[in-house]
């Protein structure tokens, strides 16, 4: 596997974690999530995000509410469920442990 392919696999695994983080900060709709990710290595497109969000909702991590928008049709605003919050806390801890391990192992 090329180095880029390896990174892609890591990014793919982390995407759900990042979405949890973004949804945790505020009620967001899909365009907000895409915008927050757009300038990062994790830039994502609707084709990936919609199926992923629907899976996270099936897993009970996020939920949405319809909300009127100033212009155009109502939008789905996503927020974390209790389960999503606890999973985010777990993931944050795990991420810190991983980081510590990686630094500890040296060069």
């Amino acid at each position, binding site marked *: 596997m090329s180095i880029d392919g390896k990174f892609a696999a890591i990014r793919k695994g982390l995407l759900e974690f990042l979405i949890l983080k973004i949804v945790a900060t505020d009620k967001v709709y899909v365009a907000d999530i895409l915008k927050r990710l757009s300038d990062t290595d994790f830039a994502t497109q*609707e084709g990936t995000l919609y199926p*992923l969000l629907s*899976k996270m909702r099936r897993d009970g991590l996020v939920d949405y509410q319809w909300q009127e928008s100033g212009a155009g049709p109502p939008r789905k605003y996503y927020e974390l469920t209790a389960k999503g919050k606890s999973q985010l806390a777990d993931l944050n801890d795990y991420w810190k442990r991983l980081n510590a391990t990686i630094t500890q192992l040296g060069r």
Partner: protein
Amino acid sequence: MQKVISINLNGNAYQLDESGYEALREYLAHAERELESNPDRVEIMADLEQAIADKCQKFLGAHKAVVTGSEVEQIVAEMGPIDAAAGADAGDSAQAGGTQPPRSERPPKRLYRIPDGAMIAGVCNGLAAHLAVDVAIMRVVFVLAALLTKGVGILAYVAMMFVIPEAQTPEQRAAAGDAPFNAKEVIDRAKRQAAEGTRQLRRQWRQQQRHWQRHGWAPGAPFAPGPPPLAALLMPVFALVHLGLFLTAATLMISLVNTGAILNWPLPPDVPVWAAALILLVAYQIVVAPIRAAQHWSWHPRAQAQPPWYAFWQAVSWLLGMAFVVWIASEHMPEIREFLQQLPGLVREFAHAIQNLGSR
């Protein structure tokens, strides 16, 4: 010059030129195929159409009413390919990744309680599934053990009730040796059941039509065919036997609780009343199980799927009826009143016995 085609995106009308229409149609058809096995397919498709509609909006203005082919291509590129794996459940994405062979072997066996078809808490059910023996045999073994050990077997059951976890997810059921595990098996089974259901409906419909042709249409004509004639004949017999058994068990139970002896047969001195009551209950369940199964079969010979609320309301009405009968009986029969007054004490003794078991 290009033809203009009007389309409907999640309830919004847009005009595309012909090449744009083709590009978008292809994208959405591809998305639909990719999401074929996704349970939220309809919802995701609506989301995608809405997102495309929002993007179309950007290309339209006061003097521009049509989205062109190159603009549609830009939109489609922005949307990105449908990542079916991102939306697949954990088990499926491993397959979609193609790095692991599909999981077809069953998970390692584990002991679980199985609540479906359980008499008390599913302990025997789970043990039977785990040891791959018939559940009736397991129950008989349990009751014999309880009798031979003078009630210790019942405490063992109660202990297992708390110690052994209940199989709740399909994976746990599978590990308990009970249900199909992987998604394919579940889907196959659902398909078989759906096909069976449609066949049944068609059969009933044909029967109904024949009935109408022969007898003319009459309101309230029986739509569903009844049980087969033999079972229908036997039904009252089953019901009578069931009722007789119930009354016998109730009489035994009342005499046991009130006098501490089953009719004139006193309990062995070291068997507490509550243990005898439990044994009686279990024995009654075992004796009555085949009759209940036969009754059930003659009522629902083709295992018709009832809506879930049906069982709920049936249970509620049964409980209400039971409560009413018990109330009437306790008003008019002193034995029953005494029985009801004894019950709390019996439960307390039972709780004490369990506490003693725990502190020992």
